C-alpha cells in the first residue's frame, strides 16, 4: 500500500490489517507515555482545502503521537486563496520534504490526482475529496462496529452484520466509503434516504436502498445504524431543493427515542459528526448509552495512526 485514496477496491486482507494495527495503536494510548518514536524524522503535511477541524486535528493527533512533524496548511488565507493551483501547492510541499500528505479537497478526485501526478513523492492519504470518498472515516466506522459486535478479535471482518446508513447519501463521501468497505468486510449495507438524496447509479453499488426509516426498522435486523449529517451547507439550492422542510425530514428520517426503542438491544448508534441535534438525530438518541459517537472520535485517532504507520514507516515509503 503506497497511498490510501479509496476504500473501493481496498482488498479485505489489507483492510483487516489496518483494523488490527489500529487495535494495537489503541492499546498504546492507555500507556503512561502515549507518544511513540516510530515516525521520528518524518514530516506529515495536512493539506486542507476545505474546513474540517475534526478530521484535521484527528490526523494531527495521530501523526504527533507517532512523533512525526506536522505542518498544517489550510487554503484559507494562504497562497491558494491567491489563486495557486494544486500542482504548485503540491510542488511547494514536496520541496519542503513531505513524507506524507493528508489532503482534504472540495473536488472529487483531488487526492488521486495528487498521488498519481508525480508532483509529490510522499504517501497520499485522502481525508475527503468532494462527494467521492473519505476512507479513514469508513475505517474508523468499521473498527468501531468490529469492536462492539464482532468481538474485536484480530483478523475478523464484519461477516453477517447488517448496517443501515441513513440520510444524505447523495452528497456523502462517508456513505460511499462505508458502503464499499463494510461490504468488502462482509457486512450487509442498507441505505435509507428520500429518493431525492440517493445518487444516480446507486443500483450498481453493493447495497440495498429503502426510502423509509420505519420500513427499514421493520424489515432489517440491524446491528448498527449510522445517521449522516444533513449537510445544509451543501444544499446551495436551499434545503427545499431536496426535501420539503427540515421538520418533515426529521419526522420521516430522524432517529428519536421512539425509533431507538424499536431497534434490537445490541444495535449501536453512530454518527460521523458534527451532529445536528434535533434534525437527523434527537438528543435522546445521541446521548443514549448505545450511542458510540464519542468513541468514534477516539477510534479515529487510532485508525489514522495505523494508516500513517503502514504508509510511512517502511522502506517502501522512503523509495
Amino acid at each position, binding site marked *: 500500500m503506497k497511498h490510501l485514496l479509496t476504500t473501493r477496491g481496498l482488498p479485505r486482507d489489507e483492510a483487516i490489517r489496518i483494523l488490527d494495527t489500529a487495535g494495537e495503536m489503541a492499546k498504546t494510548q492507555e500507556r503512561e*507515555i502515549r507518544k511513540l518514536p516510530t515516525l521520528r524524522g518524518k514530516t506529515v503535511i495536512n493539506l486542507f482545502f476545505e474546513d474540517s477541524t475534526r478530521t484535521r486535528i484527528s490526523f494531527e493527533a495521530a501523526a504527533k503521537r507517532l512523533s512525526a512533524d506536522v505542518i498544517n496548511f489550510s487554503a484559507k488565507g494562504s497562497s491558494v486563496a491567491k489563486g495557486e493551483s494544486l500542482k504548485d501547492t503540491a510542488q511547494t510541499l514536496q520541496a519542503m520534504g513531505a513524507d506524507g500528505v493528508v489532503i482534504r479537497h472540495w473536488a472529487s478526485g483531488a487526492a488521486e490526482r495528487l498521488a498519481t501526478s508525480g508532483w509529490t513523492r510522499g504517501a497520499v492519504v485522502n481525508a475527503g475529496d468532494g462527494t467521492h470518498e473519505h476512507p479513514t472515516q469508513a475505517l474508523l466506522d468499521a473498527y468501531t462496529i468490529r469492536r462492539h459486535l464482532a468481538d474485536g478479535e484480530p483478523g475478523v471482518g464484519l461477516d453477517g452484520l447488517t448496517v443501515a446508513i441513513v440520510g444524505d447519501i447523495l452528497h456523502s463521501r462517508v456513505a460511499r466509503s462505508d458502503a464499499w468497505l463494510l461490504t468488502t468486510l462482509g457486512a450487509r449495507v442498507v441505505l435509507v434516504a428520500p429518493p431525492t438524496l440517493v445518487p444516480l447509479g446507486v443500483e450498481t453499488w453493493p447495497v440495498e436502498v429503502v426510502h423509509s426509516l420505519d420500513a427499514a426498522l421493520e424489515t432489517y435486523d440491524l446491528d448498527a445504524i449510522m445517521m449522516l449529517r444533513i449537510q445544509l451547507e451543501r444544499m446551495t439550492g436551499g434545503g427545499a431543493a431536496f426535501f420539503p422542510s427540515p421538520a418533515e425530514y426529521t419526522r420521516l428520517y430522524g432517529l428519536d427515542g421512539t425509533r431507538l426503542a424499536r431497534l434490537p438491544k445490541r444495535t449501536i448508534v453512530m454518527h460521523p459528526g458534527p451532529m445536528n441535534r434535533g434534525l437527523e438525530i434527537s438528543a435522546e438518541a445521541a446521548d443514549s448509552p448505545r450511542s458510540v459517537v464519542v468513541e468514534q472520535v477516539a477510534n479515529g485517532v487510532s485508525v489514522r495512526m495505523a494508516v500513517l504507520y503502514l504508509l510511512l514507516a*517502511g522502506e517502501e515509503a522512503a523509495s
Partner: protein
Amino acid sequence: MTGAVMAAPDIARALTRIAHEILERNGGADDLVLLGIPTRGLPLARRLAERIAVVEPAFDAQARSGGIDITMYRDDLRRQPTRPIGTTTVPPAGIDGAIVVLVDDVLHTGRTIRAALDAIGDLGRPRSVQLAVLVDRGHRELPIRADFVGKNLPTSRSERVSVLLDEIDHQEEVRIERSEGEVE
C-alpha cells in the same frame, strides 16, 4: 558448524536453570515481572514464569508474565518493509517498581533489546530491568549484555540461528544454519 545445537531436553534444562538463577539473583519472586519479546520470547517468558511458580507457589505465572512488542521502537524501520505490529500485554498491576525480566530467544546485535528498553520506559518505571535469553550468539553492536543465558553459541555473522518452539513451530530445537546467499 551447522545443524541442531540444542534439543528439547537441553532447552528444558537451560530454562529451568535460568528460572533458578532469576530467583537466586533477586532473592525470591517478589515484584518479578517477565516480559517476552515477540515472537518466540512470548512462550519462553511463559515457560520461565511457570518454572518460577513451581519453586515459589505464591508466584502467579499467569498474572506476572506478558509480552512487549518493540516494532514501533526499532531503529531499522525505514530500511525494512512495513512490519505488522505484535501485541503488548502487561500485567494488570503495571511495571512501576517491579523487577522486569526481558525474555528473548536469541541475543545478537543488541538492537532489539535497546528498542525494548525504550518501550519499557514508555510503559512505566521498573525498579530494575534484567535480560534472559535462550541463546547468546555474540556480535553485539551496542553495549548490552544478558544477565541470564541458556547457551553461549559462538557463530560467524553469515550463520543464522533458528530457535524452534513447540508453541509456535510444533517442534523444539535450536539450529544453526549458513544463511542462503552468503555462502563463500
